[in-house]
């Protein structure tokens, strides 16, 4: 597994850059991960989604899909794509330091 450094701390990520151990994530890491994803500044709306992602992961063991985000995070799917243009579920999961959402089969 590759490792990378955020906020001076070494963390393990998978081949696509998702955290393998969400416990290693701290809030100050989010800005740097966001910039790597092409998001210069994290607004309150971004943070609402990021916190929702972590809460969902804690309860369910996987990050939510974009449809669930649109229904339950308080941010519509349209706005989610404005906040995270490269795909809200994956990008927000990466910034929130949780593994890649399993999605659906």
């Amino acid at each position, binding site marked *: 597994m590759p490792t990378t450094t955020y906020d001076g701390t070494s963390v393990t990520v998978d081949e696509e850059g998702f955290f393998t151990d969400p416990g290693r994530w701290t809030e100050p890491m989010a800005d740097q991960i966001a910039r790597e994803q092409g998001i210069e500044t994290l607004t309150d709306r971004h943070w609402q989604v990021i916190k929702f992602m972590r809460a969902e992961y804690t309860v369910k063991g996987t990050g939510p899909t974009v*449809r669930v985000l649109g229904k339950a995070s308080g941010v519509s799917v349209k706005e989610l*794509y404005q906040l995270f*243009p490269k*795909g809200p579920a994956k990008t927000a999961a990466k910034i929130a330091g949780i593994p890649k959402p399993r999605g*659906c089969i």
Partner: protein
Amino acid sequence: MDKRIVILGSGTAGTLTANRLRRLYGESECRITVVDQNDDHVYQPGLLFVPFGLAQPHTLVRSRPRQLHDGIAYQRAEIDRVDLDAQKAHLGGGSSLDYDVLVVATGATLLPEETEGLTGPDWEEKVFTFYDLPGAVGLHHALEHFDGGRVVVNVADLPIKCPVAPLEFAFLADWYFQRTGIRDRVELTYVTPLDGAFTKPVASKALSGLLEEKGIELVTEFTLGEVDGPGGRLISYDEREVPYDLAVVVPLHGGAEYVGRSPGLGDELGFVRVDQHTLQHPDHPGVFAIGDAAGLPASKAGSVAHFEGEVLAHNIGRFLAGQPLDASYDGHTNCFIETGFHKALLIDFNYDTEPLPGHFPAAVGLPLLKESHANHLGKLAFEWLYWHSLLPGRELPGIGSAMPEGGKNHVHA
């Protein structure tokens, strides 16, 4: 004991559960009541063939109550809501059913109106779904009059029933247009929210290869945001566009509507939260879900309901006897994928093992992840097995609930 088992839904999962329970437990042990809002049981795997004139719509529909064994009560009613604390299912017309065990088997519902523009003026004119019988029939007429142009097959977003069906539709469309002699005038495109043709890497690679061989363009990571009917375009949330002359869209799916009116029963999409191995609700031990209605990390497919059925019927008996649940569903799924020209491929997988090449159910058997005429015959034979083995709740010869490991070749994508 005289326990009351209420099964909501009389599709594949509800019917086979009722029949399995009736066989396992005597009428003095439990009363079984099945509820559905209409009496028409549709053989859903047949819907794929209707648009191409390969199945006659009326042959796919049979009576729901007639699929149930003697000693099972059937009630036709709308379901209003479930009161989990009172252990009561409220039905339309003000009646209700008290239960000791509730089985939610009301499947998945199509939600085309949730996508902007999908049910606009082009709906059932140039934009179709084959996921219900009227839609499949409408698409059949449209294909008969189609003389060339851009045909787009799109999955709006997951989860959907039978995730391989849209791929099969694309393969059969290629065959159909060759047979009608206009393939050179048809541009076929497969548009998916996934990052490949399928969810799992080895199968995704094989199926992408088949699309390419058949000259079907693949557009990935496209989550349908809007259908622009007048402009003839599908538009994704990230503002990419795919033009069409004829669009075949698999709409968003959700659980049955009453699930949303029953606090604590379902998740955000209306699917019922249950343990992925025991099929029991985490907060209400007398509540179980099976088939498409269950919010599991498994495909929404008839084979899943069949393999779950054995586990569920056993666990319900254990629960009613006050014993710990000891049967475990492993995520086993088995799908024939029709690829046109009288061939099909077969995939077999579970929660832990992705679809792999090899043979099923053992080293000597049907080829896995590889086109063959034998698999096509298997797919056709399945219709008889569905009505005469699967729904009555019988085991299929040589195929158990647990996924067979022998015969599979572990390879990497």
